[in-house]
C-alpha cells in the first residue's frame, strides 16, 4: 500500500533508500555493543532531520512539495487537508530547531521513546535529554504559534 505512496514521491523514495543504505552500513559495523534499534533510530531520524534542514536552507515552501495525489480518494478530503496542513507546520517548526533539540523532540514526541532510551541514542545523560526536550518543546510551541498567526 505504501509502496504506491513512496513511488509517487521522488524525495521520499530517495530518503528511504538513503536510510536503507545507512542502515546497511551501520549494520556492517555492528559489534553488539549497543542495541540494534539504537542505530536504526539514529539513521532514520538523522535522514529525516537532515532532509528538513536541507529544505530550510533552500528556502523551499514545503507545502508545495507535499504530493497531492497521494491522498486516498476514499477518505475525507477535509481531514486530508487538515493532516497536510499539520504536517507542513510540524516540518517547518522542526526545521527551525537545532539538531540537538530536533532529534530529541522527534524521538520523544513522534517516535514515543522515553528519555532513558533517548539518552542512549544521543549519548548523553537523561537529565540533559529532559532539558533538551523541554527547550525543544518551548521552541516548537513558539514557532508553531508564530506560524499559525502568520496564516491567513
Amino acid at each position, binding site marked *: *500500500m*505504501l*509502496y504506491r*505512496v*513512496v*513511488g509517487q*514521491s521522488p*524525495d*521520499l523514495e*530517495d*530518503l*528511504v533508500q*538513503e*536510510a*536503507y543504505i*545507512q542502515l*546497511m*552500513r551501520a*549494520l*556492517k*559495523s*555492528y559489534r553488539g555493543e549497543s542495541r*540494534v534499534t539504537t*542505530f*536504526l533510530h*539514529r*539513521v*532514520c*531520524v*538523522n535522514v*529525516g*532531520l*537532515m*532532509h528538513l534542514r*536541507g529544505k530550510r*536552507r533552500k528556502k523551499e515552501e514545503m507545502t508545495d*512539495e*507535499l504530493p497531492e495525489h*497521494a*491522498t486516498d480518494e476514499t*477518505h475525507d478530503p477535509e481531514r*486530508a487537508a*487538515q*493532516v497536510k496542513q*499539520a*504536517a*507542513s*507546520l*510540524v*516540518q517547518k517548526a*522542526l526545521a527551525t530547531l537545532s539538531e540537538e533539540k530536533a*532529534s530529541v523532540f522527534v524521538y520523544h*514526541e513522534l*517516535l514515543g521513546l522515553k528519555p532513558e532510551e533517548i539518552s542512549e541514542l544521543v549519548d548523553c545523560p537523561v537529565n540533559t535529554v*529532559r532539558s533538551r526536550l*523541554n527547550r525543544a*518543546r518551548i521552541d516548537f*510551541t513558539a514557532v*508553531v*504559534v508564530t506560524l499559525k498567526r502568520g496564516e491567513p
Partner: protein
Amino acid sequence: MSHLAADILWGLARQELTAEEQAQARAHLEGCTECQASFADVSLATGLLSVLPEAPPMPEAMARRVGQSLADAADAKAAVRFTSWWQSLFTPRFVLAAALGVVLVTVGAWWAAGVREVPAPTPIALPTPAPLPSPVPEVKPPELTPAPPVKKLSVTVASAKKSTTQKAQVLAEGSTISTQSGGSVWLKLPDGSRAGLTSSSEVTLATLEEKTLTLDIAKGSLALVVPHREDRLLTVRAGEIEVLDLGTRFLVSREPNRTLVAVEEGVVSVKTPTGEREVRAGNAVSWSNGALTELAWEPPTAVAPVVQAPTPEKESVARLGDDEEDEDDGPPPPEEAREGVAAPDTTPVGADEEWATPPPPSTNQPVRRGPPPRVMTVPSERGFSLKKIERKVRELGSRLTSPSTREAQVKDIAVSADAGDCKYALEQIDRWLKAPITKLAHEPQLRRSVKTQQIRCLNRLGRGEEASALERQLDPLP
C-alpha cells in the same frame, strides 16, 4: 504564585502526567489566565502532533531486503564470532530488529518528505523476515560479509553524474563504481582524500582500512587529491602498475594498452613489474608494452595554497544527501565529520583550488547526445575539473600515438568528438584549421577528417544549419 512549567503544560496536553499531577495542574489553570494562554499555545502545538497519522508500513520489497540483510548479518556474525547459545539469542534479536527497521525507516522518511492522509489506521503489517522469498534486487544492498578482523571504512559519494552510484551513497569495501560517457563521480575517501572518476571509468574500492586504502582502476581515469599521511598507505592499482601516494595530486589513467600516471603536485611512487620509481610534479609516466616512458606533464601554473577547512561541526549521517545539485565536476568542498564514519582528521590540500590548469571557458562541457546541451556554470575557483583532466589525458594519448603534432591534434579532435566533448573539439578544430597548412603529404586528408569532425560536432550541438552549410563546402574525396 508561580506559573506552570512548560514540561507540565506539555505533559498535561500529551496526557503524560500522573493523576495527581494532572489534578494539580488543572486546579492551577482554572485560576491563572496566563497559564491558560500558555496552555492554549501548547495545545495548539500538541494538537498538530496528534493530527498526524500513524506511520504507514514500508514497501514490501524493501522490507524484505532489510529483513534479509539483517538476517544474513546475524547469521554471518553468529557463525564467525559466537557460540551456539549466543546464536540462538542473536537471531531472534535480528528478527525483532528487522521488524523495527521496517517501522523506523518508514517513520524517518515519512517525516522528512511530507505527510499525507493515508488510509485509516491500518494495522502495520510487518513482513517477518523468517520465511523470506528470494528478494527482488531493486536496490542492490551492499554485500554483507562476516565481521572482519580490521575495521572497515566506507567511501561517500560526494557527487555523481551518469554513474552507477548516486550522490550521498555510502560505499563499502569491494564496491565498484563506474561512469558512463560524459559522467563523473567524486568520492570522499575515509582519510579525507578525494578521488574523481572521469567519464567511462570503472574503479573498485579494493581495500578500505584505516591504514590501507587501495583503489583498482579497471578502465578510465582516476584523479586524486591526497593529503600526505604517514599513518596510512594509499595505493591506486591499474593492472600491472601500482601508484603509491606520497602526498599529492595525481591521476592514473588506464587504457587497454597503456597506463598513464601524471603528477600535478607532490610526488608519487610508481611500481611496475620491472621496478619502482618516483614521479614528481609536472611529470608523467606511461607504461606500455612492458616499458615505462617518461613524459612531460603540464607543470602547475600556480601553487595551490593549503586550505584549512573550518572547524567541523557535529554532523549526522545524512548530511551529504541534502546538498544542492551542482554541475561542477570539481571536488566538493570538505564535508564535516559524519556520525558513524571515521572522521577525516586532515583536510585535502588545496582541494578547493584550481588544479594547476587554466580555467576553461564555462561552456566547456561534454555535449549530451539528443536534446540541446544544457548551459552549465562552472565556477573556476571551485576544484579542479575532471573534464580538464580528461582532455589532458586524451591530448597526451594522442601525442603519444601520433608521428607529428599536427596529426596528434587531429587525433585529439577525433577522440574528443567520440567522447562527446564536442565544444572542446570544436575549439580545437577552429585552432587547427586556422593554423598554417603544413607540407605533410596527407594534409588534405587530415583537413577533410577535421572538417568531418566539425560537421559531426555541430550536428551534435544542434547546429544543423551550420553543419549542412559546411557539408556542402566539403571537398570531394580525392
